């Protein structure tokens, strides 16, 4: 397998690792107020 072909496989792993680092440093906020049901 040549370098560019192999790069696809390890490239995916590298992206996943970088994403992990970014998410770990992120401050994520979700508005979790209870929804009012329309019924």
């Amino acid at each position, binding site marked *: 397998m040549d370098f560019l*072909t192999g790069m*696809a496989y390890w490239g995916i792993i590298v992206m996943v690792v970088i994403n992990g680092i970014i*998410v770990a440093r992120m401050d994520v*906020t*979700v*508005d979790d107020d209870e929804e009012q*049901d*329309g019924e």
Partner: protein
Amino acid sequence: MMESLKENWVIWLLMAFYLAFCFGVGWYFRAKAARGVNDFYVAKRQIPGWVVSLAFFSTFASTNTYIGQAGKAFSAGLSWAWVGVFWTFFCIISWLLLGPRLRNQTSALNSVTVPDYFDFRYQSSLSTAIRILSAIVVLFATIWYMVGITKGCANLLETLLDVPFAWGVFGILASTCAYTVWGGMYSVLWTDAIQGLMMFGVAILMVTLPFIYVGDASELMTRLAETTHVTKDGDPIGSGLVTFSTLVSFTYIAGIGLAVGMKQISEPRCLIRFYSVDNAKGMKFAMLWTPIFLGISLVCVMGLGALVHGMATDEEAFVLAQDTDKVVGFMLAKFDNQLVSGICLAGLFAAGMSSLASVMLIVGTAAVNDIWNVWKPLPQTTMVRATKLTIVAYCALVFIVTLTASDDIVALTAFSGALFAASFFPAIFGGLYLRWGTGHGAFWSMTIGLISCIVWRFKFREEYQFLKDIHEIIPSFIISFVAYLVISSITKKKAPPTEHLDKIFSIGKPERNG
């Protein structure tokens, strides 16, 4: 059929267990889902992050991935995995850029579908038009996707279990429709999560099969590098399976990678997942783990078809090259182990059914909430009932189209992905990030994206040889995004009132006060 039942009883038994589980989940949630629109459509936004994460993965990855794309590597070689690079990239982008914002804005707007998000977010004279147009796009584009998935599953049933194609199509649609209609978003998400776990395991299992069959990893790689097999047209493959972009151009790989990968940032079946995340901890979990589930699975399956060359004779390889959707079925038949085939078949069905269930719900909600209900408002319980009926009717239509459609899975699903990306993404991204984005910008970018996508696919790519490999996603996405920016800036004065924008853009900010 009866002979197949006797011969393959292990596979049938595993399949029966799997289907019983799906029906059980649907039945368990049927009362909860019937309570109203917020329950049936978005599971009351109270689903744990790990469930949503697995559900996103299993919804996005489908038989298109496990059969269509894995099989495509048979003709494209190991460099087909570059498609997976694009997909993983857009999975990350989707969760990082869209996830938290879409969850917060849709909650603030009490939006339960993507088309009604456009309506509530843009608040313009064209809002209703955008809502109806996007619902029509959903109804039109989804059918090709569902046909592709159903075909993949039915082909597999035919190859492995001798089930007649039409019966296979009926079986997959009817069983998925049943549990979706019973439990709505609750059963879709929970079955998706379990299906996601199965798919993750099956991806790892499947990639080991060619290695076990050949018995030696280096021997398998040598067979690939020095294969005597030929392409679909009869040309020798040579070392093409292991060298970059020899068998298909990188432009083509990038086109499929973009068209399908961008579904994660534009297609309602993926975006609707964000609506249901319960809290910040769940969101963060999903942002971290979804790309892991998807990325590792793609590493396993995207080159799988190329590895199958190591299992095939010259004659078998030539037949498979004519229809790469049959490569995975061939691999399982050649490996000839009932237990392995049973587990893989259940996993492949999980891949297909998880995606089908999600889009079934999307078409039902789009037709009822965003077309029927806009035209003639309905009470909540009637809406749920109408949604269920619409899902059943749409499945009947898909059944008929599947029996007559001829294109391959990859082409069908990639085209529907391109339609969504070109018509939805600018309006979603602009809605979430650009305060000055207007309803006019959203409406016209959607219309222009749609038209340019169809024209490029059926006119330019068909008629001009030099444009054949440039997927419609690339020009149509650029054109629609530019249209959104230009038209929004021209119609800046038609942006929603400041109070409305303040309300939706302040949601989710840590410093907000209650």
